[in-house]
């Protein structure tokens, strides 16, 4: 292993600009003559728009224009779309409502835009916004997914009776019923997977600049996938032809899924820029972010697991209601279906699984993919059922898991997926050692002496990452292919630019991708630049989410590097006057096999461009190759997390006192970065389990709409984590990588709740397990923990 190659903990190349304040985030970019846009948003969860009077606002100082949904419709700007088609079990398509970027007739959630003001300064735009008079007819609203389908619930979209978007199912219902009929033991749980607000620290932003001379538009925005944004805004919204629209996602301050989607604000900025013929800038307030960034999770589930007399799992069934909010966001439909039910087998060999999912509209912010997207929900169902099942049957939860682990690969589950590689027992064993589970009894007794309750919880999770191959996702309803592309440009001086369709918003691609190139070409990491996030520079790309940048994005780079090496060998053959087949490439040097004749990579690059050693008929000059890579399967990262908590029964405060994570991510490029990804994921998962509760009142008002009310995990809410790995290579991509971005967020909630319920002796606790909730559970079940 070289100091900058695969497996080395290389310090990040991108950090210098971030630690010196020289990052370039969207809001740091300004255009000459730019105006500022302010969105006037509905304060009501559900209201007809009778009339909008903008006369007074239009006359206020600095106001350039006041525009409404009617103006948008008059200009024939198309609706936003959901790009993944789901079919109900009766064969009918999902009920996708119209989603205009500015509501013209009816507002469907608090925060739905109803007008915009464009002005010389942001202050002027906001002042004028106060004077846009909207006459609303307030309608009854529904925010609770469990109540959305009830008789008499307010109807949100005519296209969707009972507010139902689809009734979908997966698996063999008959076989599953049979498994339950013959079960020795059945464990049943009612689960609410709480709604979360993603809260990337950089709020979303957009800056649109219309170039009247070329009738072309440029958009800087906070996107995880600028090419997909351009495609949707061109092809579906109809803003401009694809070649007349440039989308640039510069430094992006975190995404966690919430910046995948195509949002109303960027569409409106583009449209407004052309309309006022000036650049238009929008930067979300945090309060606005709470009301407009797609939220995550929000499932209500009843789940059951069947066991035979030996404790083998024989069946699993689940019925889930998934809240998709007021409109179907870009990939919302896929999250509670193909990213959820397909993972209900967990790490276990389960012969029969059946899952039904009803997706519903409510008068809330749209819900879409958030770190893990469907897989945390599935893991929570499976890992809670196994844990509770073990407790009910009086067996050790780790032993029950081991007994049911998949041990032979490939393993086809009854819910589409074929696991390709793994060693689940190895991760569990290592985690148990690091967590010192043998010492738990003593620690528990020590806690008890201090009047505290101690508990330990496991979560042995699996996820499907790499989100691909294209043909497979296409057959499941995806509107796009999910390959990735790369271009490797070798300059005449031997430095290299890699253009990638992946997008880094904290993941460190400028470092890890360069490590791959450094290792392959034997050149210093300083001589490599990674270029991403600009549709004018990068050929095409599907962006970054679902831990696909390593497994898919880097695989595309590998393919392009293979081509570069092949071409460079041809050049070297001419330089060294040898047969191409005799040229060997190692450590940045081309050598004629069996001789001391060699040429350095830089010399070969120069010769490829000066082209003096060969004729145009013999070889094409230049050294630049591109590749598209479509993998053969998803990847299946898996691992074991063990959480240890201590609870103060007097206050209900839960302290996470120990965290061990042993994950199998396949081959790791940079262990420092991988550990960082695991830390962040765990923090978000612990946030879901203990702190983050998104609360809507019965009228659809978001009660937790700021950092005053929504409990973001702070440094003193969390412990340091013990993080380690085991490795089984992924056979589905050339580097053997699986992906690490979501693992912590997927594993953590079940581990925390399993630990808390272990401490309390009752399963009756919902997320977030706030001090109030834990205290109430203790009061409700006082004898359980006292019996310890």
């Amino acid at each position, binding site marked *: 292993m070289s100091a900058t190659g695969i497996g080395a903990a290389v*310090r*990040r190349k*991108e*950090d*210098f*600009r*971030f*630690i*010196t*304040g*020289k*990052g*370039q*985030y969207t*809001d*740091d970019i*300004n255009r000459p003559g730019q105006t500022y846009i302010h969105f006037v948003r509905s304060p009501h969860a559900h209201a007809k728009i009778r009339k909008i009077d903008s006369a007074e606002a239009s006359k206020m100082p600095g106001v350039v224009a006041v525009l409404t949904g009617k103006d948008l419709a008059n200009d024939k700007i198309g609706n936003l779309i959901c790009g993944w088609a789901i079919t109900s079990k009766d064969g009918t398509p999902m009920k996708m409502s119209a989603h205009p970027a500015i509501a013209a007739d009816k507002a469907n959630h608090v925060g739905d835009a109803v007008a915009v003001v464009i002005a010389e300064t942001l*202050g002027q735009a906001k002042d004028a916004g106060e004077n846009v008079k909207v006459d609303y007819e307030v309608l009854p609203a529904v925010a609770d997914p469990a109540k959305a389908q009830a008789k008499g619930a307010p109807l949100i979209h005519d296209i969707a009776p009972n507010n139902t978007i689809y009734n979908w199912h997966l698996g063999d219902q008959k076989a599953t019923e049979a498994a339950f009929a013959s079960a020795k033991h059945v464990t049943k749980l009612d689960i609410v997977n709480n709604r979360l607000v993603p*809260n*990337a*620290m*950089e*709020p979303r932003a957009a800056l649109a600049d219309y170039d009247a001379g070329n009738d072309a538009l440029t958009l800087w925005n906070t996107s995880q996938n600028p090419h997909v944004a351009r495609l949707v805004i061109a092809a579906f919204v109809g803003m401009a032809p694809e070649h007349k629209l440039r989308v640039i996602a510069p*430094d*992006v*301050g*975190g995404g*966690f899924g919430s910046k995948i989607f195509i949002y109303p604000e960027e569409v409106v900025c583009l449209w407004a820029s052309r309309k006022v013929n000036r650049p238009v800038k929008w*930067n979300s*307030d*945090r*309060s606005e972010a709470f009301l407009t960034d797609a939220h995550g999770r929000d499932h209500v589930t009843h789940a059951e697991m069947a066991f035979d007399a030996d404790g083998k799992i024989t069946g699993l069934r689940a019925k889930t209601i998934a809240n998709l909010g007021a409109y179907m966001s870009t990939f919302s439909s896929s999250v509670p279906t193909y990213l959820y039910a397909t993972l209900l087998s967990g790490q276990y060999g389960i012969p029969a699984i059946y899952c039904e999912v009803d997706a519903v509209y409510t008068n809330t912010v749209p819900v879409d993919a958030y770190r893990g997207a469907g897989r945390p929900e599935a893991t929570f169902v499976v890992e809670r059922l196994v844990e509770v099942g073990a407790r009910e049957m009086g067996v050790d939860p780790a032993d029950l898991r081991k007994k049911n682990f998949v041990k032979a690969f490939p393993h086809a589950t009854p819910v589409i997926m074929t696991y390709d590689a793994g060693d689940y027992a190895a991760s569990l064993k290592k985690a148990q050692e690091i967590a010192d589970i043998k010492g738990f009894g003593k620690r528990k007794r020590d806690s008890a002496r201090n009047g505290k309750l101690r508990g330990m919880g496991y979560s042995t999770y699996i996820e499907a990452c790499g989100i691909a191959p294209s043909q497979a996702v296409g057959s499941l309803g995806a509107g796009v292919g999910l390959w990735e592309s790369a271009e490797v440009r070798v300059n005449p001086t031997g430095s290299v630019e890699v253009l990638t369709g992946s997008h880094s*918003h*904290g*993941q*460190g691609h400028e470092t890890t991708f360069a490590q791959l190139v450094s290792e392959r070409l034997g050149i210093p990491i300083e001589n490599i630049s990674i270029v991403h996030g600009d549709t004018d520079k990068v050929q095409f790309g599907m962006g970054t989410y679902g831990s696909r940048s390593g497994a898919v994005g880097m695989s595309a780079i590998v393919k392009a590097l293979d081509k570069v090496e092949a071409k460079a060998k041809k050049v070297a053959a001419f330089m060294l006057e040898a047969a191409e087949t005799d040229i060997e490439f190692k450590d940045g040097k081309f050598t004629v096999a069996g001789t001391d004749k060699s040429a350095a990579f830089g010399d070969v690059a120069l010769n490829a461009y000066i082209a003096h050693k060969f004729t145009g008929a013999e070889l094409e000059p230049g050294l630049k190759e591109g590749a598209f890579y479509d993998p053969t399967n998803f990847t299946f990262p898996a691992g074991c997390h063990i959480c240890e908590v201590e609870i103060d029964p007097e206050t209900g405060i839960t302290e996470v006192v120990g965290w061990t994570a042993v994950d199998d991510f396949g081959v790791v490029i940079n262990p*420092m*970065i991988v*550990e*960082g990804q695991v*830390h*962040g*994921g*765990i*923090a*978000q998962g612990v946030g879901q389990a203990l702190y983050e509760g998104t609360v809507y009142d019965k009228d659809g008002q978001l009660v937790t709409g*700021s*950092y*005053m009310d929504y409990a*973001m*995990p*702070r*440094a*003193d809410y*969390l412990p*340091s*984590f013990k993080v380690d790995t085991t490795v089984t290579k992924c056979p589905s991509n050339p580097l053997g990588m699986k992906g690490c971005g979501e693992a*912590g967020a997927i594993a953590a909630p079940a581990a925390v709740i399993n630990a808390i319920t272990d401490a309390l002796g009752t399963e009756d606790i919902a997320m977030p397990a706030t001090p109030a909730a834990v205290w109430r559970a203790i009061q409700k079940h006082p004898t359980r923990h006292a019996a310890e």
Partner: protein
Amino acid sequence: MPKVSMTVNGNAVTAEADARTLLVQYLRESLRLTGTHVGCDTSQCGACVVHVDGKAIKSCTMFAWQAEGANVQTIEGLAKDGKLHPMQEAFRENHGLQCGFCTPGMIMTAVDLVHRKGNNLDEKTIREELEGNICRCTGYHNIVKSIAAGAKAMA
């Protein structure tokens, strides 16, 4: 519009700012010092922390005119003569940042913490002192490590 003058990173500066212009807006928009970030609107996240007359403050909680005549230091002024500040080095060395958005505020808070509490900071102290700085990427693990190391290096 009234003019507001102060010293920023050692330079005397003057720019127009109306009565409601926040210090962070003055820095970002009038001076184009965009290293100081805005991550919330309720003074919780700490992405906008700068030093005013040697003390860490959230520049979203102060009007520009309130800093008239003050000595302000932002993340851009921390490295001296092309050499990174030890706390900046510590964040890079310990992978104390991912997306980088909260980082300027974290580093400015950390430097102030060392000034107040010294060079030997235990984990508990660091975590408690970070109550006013939110990070969504790192889970704080490596930020805590970075600050402990940076504090030592500042000795």
